[in-house]
């Protein structure tokens, strides 16, 4: 009786997702391993011989790595500061963090076009101060993509870290102090290790998010392709569905790989976290 009830509740959702997501995804992956003559990995071999594609893959990984590092460096201290605030101020700061997170990525990337463009705010400011004599080319470079992605994902890592840091008992910090730890030692020996779970989840979110983001590189990258814009280009502009499927599979593989590496790292750093 209970069993039947349970299946009845779960079945519609499971069926829907299976038909409209799982099957399309697995078919996408599956077709890349077959051609007219049967099983093959020739498509992948060709791919990894292609300098142009390798270039794009490496650029994307590099951009994602820089974005993640910058997000941690900016987000960790800010999150620590917010987690120490009083209840009301903390809530307000969190709202300010969440707001950009909920705002359209088109709006957020567009705002950077206004700022770092040739006639943008930054160039005008630097020109008027006489620090440069011709406008800097920031927009439509990997740097522009990194700036846009940091802006996109920084709130995510802050919010994740605040959630973890809030749960660090203040008595632990006091205990460390009473055992002779300076403020710096409390930070490096207690707060940082206990924030590792948040740092790992946050880094995964940022890295994977940056690796697969489309809107930001599409708007800020110009001719600079990253893997997601390359996928889109092959699927829509070039109509190369086989190539697109291979790119899609590689993206899924890299995503899974990154998540498992980070999780392994987390286990090593924090055996009983």
């Amino acid at each position: 009786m209970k069993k039947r009830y349970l299946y009845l509740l779960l079945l519609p959702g499971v069926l829907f997702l299976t038909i409209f997501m799982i099957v399309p995804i697995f078919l996408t992956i599956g077709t890349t391993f077959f051609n007219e003559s049967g099983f093959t990995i020739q498509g992948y071999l060709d791919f990894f011989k292609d300098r142009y594609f390798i270039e794009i893959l490496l650029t994307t990984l590099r951009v994602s790595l820089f974005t993640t590092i910058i997000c941690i460096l900016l987000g960790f201290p800010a999150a620590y500061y917010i987690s120490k605030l009083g209840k009301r101020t903390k809530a307000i700061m969190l709202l300010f963090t969440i707001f950009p997170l909920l705002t359209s990525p088109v709006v957020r990337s567009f705002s950077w076009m206004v700022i770092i463009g040739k006639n943008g705010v930054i160039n005008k400011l630097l020109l008027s101060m006489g620090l440069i004599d011709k406008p800097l080319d920031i927009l439509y470079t990997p740097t522009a993509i990194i700036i846009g992605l940091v802006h996109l994902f920084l709130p995510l890592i802050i919010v994740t870290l605040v959630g973890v840091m809030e749960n660090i008992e203040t008595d632990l910090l006091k205990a460390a102090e009473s055992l002779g730890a300076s403020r710096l030692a409390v930070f490096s020996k207690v707060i940082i290790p206990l924030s590792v779970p948040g740092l790992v989840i946050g880094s995964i979110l940022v890295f994977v998010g940056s690796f697969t983001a489309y809107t930001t590189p599409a708007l800020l990258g110009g001719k600079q392709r990253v893997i997601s814009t390359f996928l889109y280009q092959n699927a829509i502009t070039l109509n190369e569905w086989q190539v697109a499927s291979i790119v899609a599979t590689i993206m899924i593989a890299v995503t899974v790989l990154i998540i498992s590496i980070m999780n392994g790292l987390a286990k090593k750093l924090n055996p009983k976290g």
Partner: protein
Amino acid sequence: MQEKNRGLALFTFLVFLFLLGPLLIISVTSFEGGNILKFPPEEFSLRWYENIFNVEMFLISFKTSILVSLAGNLLALLLGVPAAYALSRFDFKGKTIINAFFVSPILVPGIVLGFAFLRYIVGTYQLPIYAALFVGHTVIMLPFIIRVISSSLSNFDFSIEEAAESLGASKVGTFFTVVLPNIKSGILAAVMIAFLESFNNVDISVYMTGPGVSTFPIQMLTYVENYFDPTISAISVLLMIITAFFMFIVERLMGLSYFTKR
């Protein structure tokens, strides 16, 4: 000790300047009176707000987006509420797997998911663009619906259900008279979060365009590629107002813990 905190406060202030400054700057540029987008604007006008309504595709795509998000939301609720209830109420073998299954659409890169939809839902299944948009958006909203409602159900005391049954209510009756009213605010919050997620989506909608059909964000992208005027700034301001309103309501309904928990 005080010194260090002041340094940290300044650092945090700069981080937030980085986060919110750009949004402030485009808001200001939306009031530009001239033809070119620049900061600071030279004269004040509301003409770019008017211009939004002169671009027909904005109006059409806005309607499309609203329709797709609302209809998708409704279907995601019909599928998600029973599932979230089953996952919170019962213990059974494979529960963690089912749970992971329902949040998996978040884990698949959106741009990949969109391509798979294009290739198989539009291609193989031969669904028309509108239907494909509706199905695709339902898929991406489902995890949010299930997550938010599950967290709302995790605070629910299921012995109340037994109380209702002991008083003569049927199982289905119990759900509608006792469970549903108690997770009302959770459902509303779920709807709003899922709506924002769907309405702002680019990664999937970007594949699903056809003659005269596209969603609002895709229309914005197309516009930016062709014109660099403050129309998009004006739209941004309107979208931010809606976002702020939604965020405020979600905060009222369930606090901020949803966002900080992972």
